[in-house]
């Protein structure tokens, strides 16, 4: 292929990417604006909408987060014990499990799961509303679409993602406990004591701060892809896929950056 063409394509992709980033940033600012200024402009964000999103985003995800975090905790225990057997240090596995789950895997697994569930749902819902003129209908009724569609989701995500991350931490530790108790003959209480002695508040805070950042990423990627949909049903499908892939990619990248800076 003509190298000049490739460079031109790269240039166009970068410009488009910057445009989208700007659009997402404006959406974030606007949704925060409506949360605080809404009541003064007779367009307050409805509490019922926030609770409805809390149920959909958070409460409905509890079973799957619990199960998958349990599984991840168990896998960490299995792998950890297998590796540490080389040094005869299986008893130290609790250190590895506790730190990995609370600082890394809890927020990451929760972020990825919620990105898949909610990131796609947001893009699909808003994209479909764009295509069927429902967003226009909102505007002619005097309802600002960002206030109606984005602000409740943002609030709900900022509440629920840290909460789900904490649940994931507990489930992961429990998963590790189940395996360690059976394999190492460790008592459950000893496991808990070991966790307490290893973990510091800072570890938990690290994980929860990451979850707040992930919440913002998932919301923005989902709604931006939803609002920028073109092309009918196929466009909505493309947008939904893109939303999940981008959200997960940004989550992993953000995780890497945060982890680096928080552990210097």
């Amino acid at each position, binding site marked *: 292929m003509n190298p000049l063409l490739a460079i031109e394509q790269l240039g166009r992709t970068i410009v488009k990417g910057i445009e989208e980033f700007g659009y997402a940033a404006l959406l974030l600012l606007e949704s925060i604006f409506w949360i605080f200024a809404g009541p003064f402009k007779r367009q307050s964000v409805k509490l019922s909408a926030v609770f409805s999103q809390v149920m959909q985003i958070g409460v409905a995800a509890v079973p799957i987060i619990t199960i998958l975090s349990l599984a991840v905790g168990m896998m960490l225990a299995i792998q950890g014990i297998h590796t540490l057997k080389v040094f005869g240090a299986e008893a130290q596995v609790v250190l590895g499990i506790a730190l990995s789950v609370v600082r890394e895997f809890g927020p990451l697994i929760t972020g990825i799961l919620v990105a898949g569930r909610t990131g796609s749902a947001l893009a699909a819902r808003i994209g479909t509303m764009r295509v069927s003129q429902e967003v226009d*209908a909102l*505007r002619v009724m*005097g309802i600002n679409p960002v206030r109606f569609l984005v602000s409740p989701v943002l609030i709900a995500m900022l509440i629920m993602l840290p909460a789900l991350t904490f649940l994931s931490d507990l489930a992961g530790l429990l998963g590790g406990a189940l395996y360690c108790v059976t394999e190492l003959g460790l008592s459950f209480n000893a496991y808990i004591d070991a966790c307490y002695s290893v973990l510091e508040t800072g570890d938990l805070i690290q994980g929860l701060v990451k979850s707040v950042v992930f919440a913002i990423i998932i919301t923005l990627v989902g709604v931006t892809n939803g609002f920028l949909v073109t092309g009918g049903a196929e466009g909505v499908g493309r947008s939904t896929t893109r939303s999940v892939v981008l959200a997960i990619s940004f989550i992993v990248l953000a995780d890497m950056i945060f982890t680096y800076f928080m552990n210097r």
Partner: protein
Amino acid sequence: MIQIRDLVTHYGKRKILDGLNLTVYQGEIVVIMGGSGSGKSTLLNHMLGLLTATSGEMELLGVDFTHASNDEKQGLHRHMGVAFQSGALFSSMSVGENIQMPMREHTNLRQSTMDILTQMKLEIVKLGGFENLMPSELSGGMIKRTALARAIALDPELLFFDEPSAGLDPIVAAELDELILRLRKAFHMTMVIVTHELDSAFRIADRIVVLDKGQMVFDGNVEEIKQSTNEMVVALINRKTEEQDDGDTDAFLERLMN
């Protein structure tokens, strides 16, 4: 009610509306017609406040759109009702909840009051008792009627219709026309209707405006349009197609092969 002066608007580099002038007086029913691509939907979207013009002035219900603040424009929505072509009903809400949306946003009525008002609006469009159905369970005619019920939820002074009879069988379309006339008689609403259907237009319009390639080519009542000598208007009225076949088979074959 509505005053548009020298409206010019572009879609990227393409000029869609070119120096359009339109006045709509209180209590009239104005029908906007034109071929596909003449700019009628764009004009409607401008009147609804969904698009910003390149240049020109527009005044709606006394508010100067070109210079008004967002808050002032916001206040107008309470006095406008819109029935979109595909209904644009919120698919996650029932018929009743759809109709109550404007009420929830602009009033502080109690739920019981809103329920009664919803019933009233549904009765007007002959859909009484259907408030618990979801939009996906409705037929085409029912969707249009629900959209109309939602548009009149707050008894607006100005009502807009985008292709109200599109996709409806002739009987249902005629019923919708009757409904529009009754609404005007009962509530003195001013209506702007964009449509292709000649029968509906002749039946309900006080004034017909014809657009062609972004410019107004005709503005008059039903009698006047039937006597117009404008080429484009005559073609529209008589559903005359352009001369397509010039009998040149060689040229046709060449187009096929290439």
